């Protein structure tokens, strides 16, 4: 099938995106305002159309090639799969990676909502490729937020516009989730720079052949600094030394690629073992002007990176679902169950079989629900930036919701992504398991999302340990209040009412479980907290998604009533039917489990920690 490798398999649902952006979350209310002054609906649509075309025509055809070829390490230099280098050029030439960058740095300062939409197309079309510009962008954002004026001038234009790449170097062999265990050291030199020495593991985009330089953002400990996360500082460590006066890249900076990982997925993205200062010749520059601020600096940037990972999950899950749907409409197998005894009955498309339909609607409702959650989050961020400086109450509210929703988007989006991809394979049957179809790659690619950028348990602990109590609990209260308001306005609706009642039950269940968690914290009953955290994150995500899907269904019902009769409105009518069905399915098949999970947690079962390790297997 190699002749087909260079074929685009990416599929997107532009109609659903337009619905969420304009009909449900009303981005038009902030377009043309504040930082988004230059943006109108027309620009939004043009950019969305062109980005989709870029994803399908440029990125999509390289997805399977990148997977099969993987990366090569030769004489200390990493080579990415064929076509990646040219694509790096094209994506920056087209301005696609500077969409959300401030005009000050020659970007387009677009709303996050648009950046998220564009990223869904691009990450879905080629997850592995998009890691490279994604990390370069993230690293540049750190420098923009915390760097000195001179550092911004030195790095930002080049990193935002693709002249230089960038990475985030936190992980070390002994320091994964436990970032504070990092041992990389930095020693101050007379010229104010630092000698860097240490090993970083699993560094995405740690080396490639696209750009004249790569700026690594390295977490390291200045000699004599305290142990743990408090003693970490952040450094820019370039692959090639940078002339401080001219900003030009020069000789190599003693950053060596000691190896690249051979992985389950995202094979086109290089994952590098980097040695800094093997020959005592590696220098770095402190980000900002104070030592020991590395962790808070990284933390501040994590929101963006975590949203990005949830978005990767959505992107891959969505194209997996849409591919499975297309296949299910074509593949014929077996008769309709109405004629199950008749051997001569006509064979039907597998999409006609109830169980396949169930899988399709399950994927649809989850994909559209997660997309709604992500766009809701992005819309809060846009609302925050527009309100900031003129309506502080609104700004605080929006920012609080962003903080609260980030772990849900990261963890639920990534967990579900893998599961949706698995369901997509199941929908195909045997061919889904082969490399002739794209879903097996999607499934392999998607598994990493629940691991990097903080494993999903780390996300769950962030939710229950930090986010629930943030702002004195106000963020959670506002969230629960928003859901409650929708429930009160719709629980008597003739169509939605019964589904909204399921939401009301789930809403009550998460409120109760949040209280229970608080109780455990107060009573010092800490062993239950990590056992409950992942499940609570799931409960809260499902309640949020149920709410947003039902809100969408309400809009669908109201708008459907205004559609023209007959064929003119047929396509919209079909879309809105789908919107209603996705909400109904989620409300009747997923939401009821939220209460059940609350009941399970109420039993306070601690058997996983009670069982001694020797009893897990005794031989």
């Amino acid at each position: 099938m190699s002749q087909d490798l260079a074929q685009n398999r990416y599929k997107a649902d532009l109609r659903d995106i337009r619905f969420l952006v304009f009909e449900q979350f009303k981005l038009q209310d902030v377009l043309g305002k504040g930082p988004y002054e230059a943006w109108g609906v027309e620009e939004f649509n043009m950019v969305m159309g062109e980005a989709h075309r870029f994803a399908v025509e440029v990125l999509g055809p390289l997805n399977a090639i990148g997977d099969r070829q993987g990366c090569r390490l030769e004489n200390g230099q990493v080579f990415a799969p064929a076509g990646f280098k040219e694509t790096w050029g094209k994506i920056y030439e087209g301005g696609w990676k500077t969409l959300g960058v401030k005009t000050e740095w020659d970007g387009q300062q677009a709303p996050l909502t648009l950046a998220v939409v564009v990223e869904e197309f691009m990450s879905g079309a080629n997850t592995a490729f998009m890691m490279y510009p994604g990390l370069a962008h993230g690293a540049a954002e750190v420098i923009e937020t915390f760097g000195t004026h001179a550092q911004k001038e030195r790095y930002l234009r080049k990193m935002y516009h693709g002249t230089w790449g960038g990475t985030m170097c936190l992980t070390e062999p002994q320091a994964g989730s436990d970032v504070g265990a990092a041992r990389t050291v930095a020693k101050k030199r007379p010229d104010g720079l630092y000698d860097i020495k240490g090993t970083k593991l699993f560094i995405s985009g740690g080396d490639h052949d696209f750009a004249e330089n790569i700026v690594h953002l390295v977490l390291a400990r200045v000699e004599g600094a305290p142990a743990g996360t408090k003693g970490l500082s952040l450094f820019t460590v370039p692959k090639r030394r940078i002339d401080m006066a001219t900003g030009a890249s020069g000789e190599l900076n003693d950053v060596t690629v000691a190896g690249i990982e051979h992985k389950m997925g995202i094979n086109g993205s290089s994952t590098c073992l980097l040695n800094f200062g093997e020959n005592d010749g590696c220098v770095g520059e402190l980000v900002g002007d104070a030592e020991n601020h590395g962790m808070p600096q990284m933390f501040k940037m994590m929101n963006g990176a975590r949203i990005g990972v949830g978005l990767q999950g959505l992107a891959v899950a969505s194209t997996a679902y849409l591919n499975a749907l297309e296949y299910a409409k074509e593949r014929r197998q077996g008769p309709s169950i109405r004629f199950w005894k008749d051997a001569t009955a006509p064979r039907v498309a597998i999409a006609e079989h109830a169980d396949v339909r169930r899988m399709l609607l399950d994927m649809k409702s989850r994909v559209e629900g997660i997309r709604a959650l992500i766009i809701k989050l992005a819309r809060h961020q846009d609302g925050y930036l527009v309100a900031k400086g003129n309506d502080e109450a609104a700004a605080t509210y929006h920012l609080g919701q962003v903080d609260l929703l980030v772990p849900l988007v990261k963890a639920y989006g990534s967990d579900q992504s893998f599961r949706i991809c698995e369901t997509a394979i199941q929908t195909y049957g045997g061919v889904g398991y082969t490399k002739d179809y794209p879903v097996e790659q999607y499934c392999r690619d998607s598994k990493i999302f629940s691991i990097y950028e903080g494993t999903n348990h780390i996300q769950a602990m962030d939710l229950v340990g930090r986010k629930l109590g943030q702002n004195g609990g106000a963020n959670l209260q506002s969230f629960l209040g928003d859901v409650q308001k929708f429930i009160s306005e719709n629980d008597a609706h003739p169509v939605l009412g019964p589904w909204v009642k399921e939401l009301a039950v789930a809403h009550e269940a998460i409120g109760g479980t949040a209280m229970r968690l608080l109780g455990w914290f107060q009573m010092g009953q800490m062993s239950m907290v990590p056992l409950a955290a992942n499940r609570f994150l799931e409960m809260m995500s499902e309640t949020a998604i149920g709410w947003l899907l039902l809100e969408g269904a309400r809009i669908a019902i109201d708008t459907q009533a205004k559609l023209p009769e007959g064929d003119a409105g047929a396509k919209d009518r079909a879309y809105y039917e789908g919107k209603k069905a996705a909400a109904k399915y989620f409300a009747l098949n997923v939401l009821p489990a939220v209460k059940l999970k609350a009941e399970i947690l109420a039993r306070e079962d601690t058997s996983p920690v009670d069982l001694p390790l020797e009893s897990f297997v005794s031989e």
Partner: protein
Amino acid sequence: MKILVPFKRVADPENANKVKVPVGANGLGPKIETTGMEFKPNPFDEYAVEAALRLTENGTAPKARLGEVTVVTVGGPEADQTLRGALATGADKAVRVEATDEQLDGAIIARALAKVVAQVGPDLVLLGKQTVDTDSAQTGPMLAELLGWPQVTFAVQITNEGNGSLLVTRNGDGGVQKVRVKLPAVVTVEDRVSYSGGVTSPPTPATHKYADGVRFAPLPAIMQAKKKPLEVKKLADLGVDTALSVKYLGFEPPPARKAGVKVKTVAELVDKLKNEAKAI
């Protein structure tokens, strides 16, 4: 070089099954129902814009504009988005001649375009060979006739010879034809002009490899498209004869295709081909 590219917003042919004709007297409908249809730029016009851009730039990095491309459409305000799209891909200016479909036929459009040509003063008018909605392929030839300019239709390759003439390869009935044409001229294009070697034009070196197809609109250009000039003129103000020479009496959809039949034997097939389809 100054180039004018007439550009049309058309109903997306992918929606052909949605085309509805309301039934009127004697079975004919008064018009084609367009609500609910999706519209897009006529693809052949997009190829013409791509060719025009290649003829007015140095295509090697850093790209430099060396001429001027004006896109023009005759239609309502809904066509502005199509023009903005062309401006975003690189066209310099846009003109829209305000008119509704009912006021127009091919001849009026050609007359309006001739006036715009007189105002803009291009060296070359590049058009798509046809629009994908009505497929009549007449606007270009009619315009050439009105202007008294030489014309080359169905161009698949254009070489700018630099001395006021173009060497154009066109798809003819019996094969390809090479035609040298002196500017000013009218040229209508096929999709192949947008392929990698579709246009050769100094100072872009002949060895430069363009990507196949129509270029992407870079993001900054999309944002700047709003700032590029888009002038709206009234059909009446152009001083053209607006008398319709084509009168639409009514519309009817093509007859639905009949379901096929399965034949059992070759003999039956031959019989049907002979006596029913009268194909042999």
